């Protein structure tokens, strides 16, 4: 549904998105997690055709965001992290206005708008002026707005930020509903725990690079592994990986040139049997150390409580 290939975005010399590759499967809810400034908003704005990439490509339902922006816009519903509403418009008129902007005929968009107000729980605010709605309600209204043209892909930038726990539960339910409707969702947050329950898969981004992505359960498991161990090898990478895969305590393995970075569910004193196994199997280990690996640092940042960020 969404394919990002080698995406680069520079602001002057600053690289905000750095050769990013990721794929969001049709029908999935994909959590896009990373600390503030990681490049989430930038990536999402490019996918919503609001920003031109420096290089690389983004395709939505097969349409390139640069080549065919209008077709992409018809497929994408975008909810920005910060947005405003027009004063003097009632909730229903607000949705009607955007429906009209997508060229939906009057009768049809009225019907759609009523249905969406219902979906986001604002049916009783139909004739309330939007600027008098609470922030959470505005957010839900904006979500309804992004659904007016029945998009296939929803891009939600930090929808949970500033929501109280109750509103978060509601958001989770709405996302579930959207998933049942067959929508694909790309939703971002700088707090992993906020998304882990609602997503099928997750990608973690830092400094504009995707650090890890995949099934949400696998990743959560990786995170619960407390240790990250860096193992530098002279040779025999593949054999080492095979051996490590068989170790029950090893949760994840990442390879970077001649270095393996593994997630390890255990305590410090559980490390020596691991090293022993490698050495006994003639794996040429030249360095073996517990680290504050890249991954771990990112996890620390994204799993922090919101207050600490």
């Amino acid at each position, binding site marked *: 549904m969404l394919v990002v290939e080698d995406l680069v975005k520079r602001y002057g010399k600053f690289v905000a998105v750095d050769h990013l590759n990721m794929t969001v499967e049709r029908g999935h809810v994909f959590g896009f997690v990373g600390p503030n400034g990681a490049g989430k908003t930038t990536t999402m704005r490019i996918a919503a055709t609001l920003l*031109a990439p420096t290089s690389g490509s983004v395709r939505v339902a097969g349409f390139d965001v640069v080549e065919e922006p209008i077709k992409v816009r018809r497929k994408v519903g975008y909810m920005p992290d910060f947005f405003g509403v027009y004063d003097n418009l009632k909730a229903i008129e607000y949705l009607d206005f955007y429906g009209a902007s997508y060229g939906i005929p009057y009768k049809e968009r009225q019907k759609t708008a009523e249905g969406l107000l219902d979906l986001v729980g604002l049916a009783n605010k139909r004739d309330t002026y939007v600027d008098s709605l609470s922030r959470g309600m505005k957010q839900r209204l904006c979500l309804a707005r992004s659904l007016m043209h029945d998009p296939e892909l929803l891009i939600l930038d930090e929808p949970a930020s500033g929501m109280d726990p109750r509103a978060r539960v509601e958001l989770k339910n709405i996302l579930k509903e959207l998933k049942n409707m067959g929508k694909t969702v790309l939703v971002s947050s700088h707090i992993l725990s906020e998304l882990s329950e609602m997503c099928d898969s997750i990608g973690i981004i830092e400094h504009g690079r995707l650090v890890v992505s995949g099934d949400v359960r696998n990743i959560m498991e990786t995170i619960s592994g407390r240790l990250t161990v860096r193992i530098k090898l002279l040779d025999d990478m593949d054999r080492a990986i095979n051996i490590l895969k068989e170790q029950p305590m090893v949760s994840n393995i990442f390879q970077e040139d001649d270095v393996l970075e593994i997630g390890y569910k255990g305590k410090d004193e559980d490390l020596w049997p691991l090293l022993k196994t490698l050495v006994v199997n003639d794996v040429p280990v030249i360095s073996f150390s517990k680290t504050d690996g890249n991954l771990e640092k990112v996890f620390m940042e994204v799993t922090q409580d919101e207050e600490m960020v």
Partner: protein
Amino acid sequence: MKRWFSNPVLASELKIRMRSWRTVLMVVGYLAIMLAIAYLFLTASVRTMSRYGGVNISSNLGLQLYMILAFIQFMLIIILIPAQTAGAISGEREKQTLDLLLCTPLSSLSIVLGKMLSSMSFVLLLTIASIPLFSLVFLFGGIAPMDIVTLFAFYLITAFAVGSIGIFCSVLFKKTSTATVVAYIVIFALGIITLLLGTYMMSEFLGRNPNFSSVYIPFPFYLNPAVGLSDLLGQQSGNTGGMGLPILGISSAMYNANVAMTGSLSWMAQKLGIWGTNLVIISVISVVLLLISAWVIKPVRTIHSSKRHSAGTGVN
């Protein structure tokens, strides 16, 4: 044409404006002020004239009233439209609603046009509402209905030109306050500079050609709607009004005789008059400004042909 009226940006804003009581009150207020001015002018003139045994009251009086109203209406357009249009796009940016518009399939040109027309709608409404007031002049004669139609066409294009400068500033500057100040400075500086430059060019030309007997029109005059207006009013009043551009050495008498014209675009001025040429020039400039504005707010600009086929239109 239908597409223009179904522009959702325009439609929505018109709906908001027209249902507000403030709009109605302001229209009524404006008409009342115009009416009061007309009344004061007429009573004052009639009193002075009767004291001096006035002759020829009617058509001259009607003409003068017409010019006063025309001038007020013109100033209203020049003074209000920059403030209204300069916030049109930058205001969307400040309210953080521009992105939501840009990610719809609306073209950036229709967003720019929709925002411009809707922000001008109030002034245009005032202008249209004042048409009946202008017909007061018919009571005195001297002005034909067609003159009023021409005058309002002139207003419309002037409003369009001033509005496009406002929109252009609104696109270029992030803050509405900056955009507004710059729009006023540009519009009034243009007014003064074109007038001074044109006058200078004229006197210089006459200095070089002392025996010159036809009319020379310097190009800067075509950029200034105020010049166009006084020319139009001069033409409409014939010789009796004494308006036109007498101070600049141009007399509206040239419309009555076949006076040869020289200077830039004199071939056009010969056919359309100075004011007509003026309208053509400012229309061209405003269309260019609007196209540039649309290009600037367009988030993703493809330089190459957009007809290029994308590799796969398949679905993932």
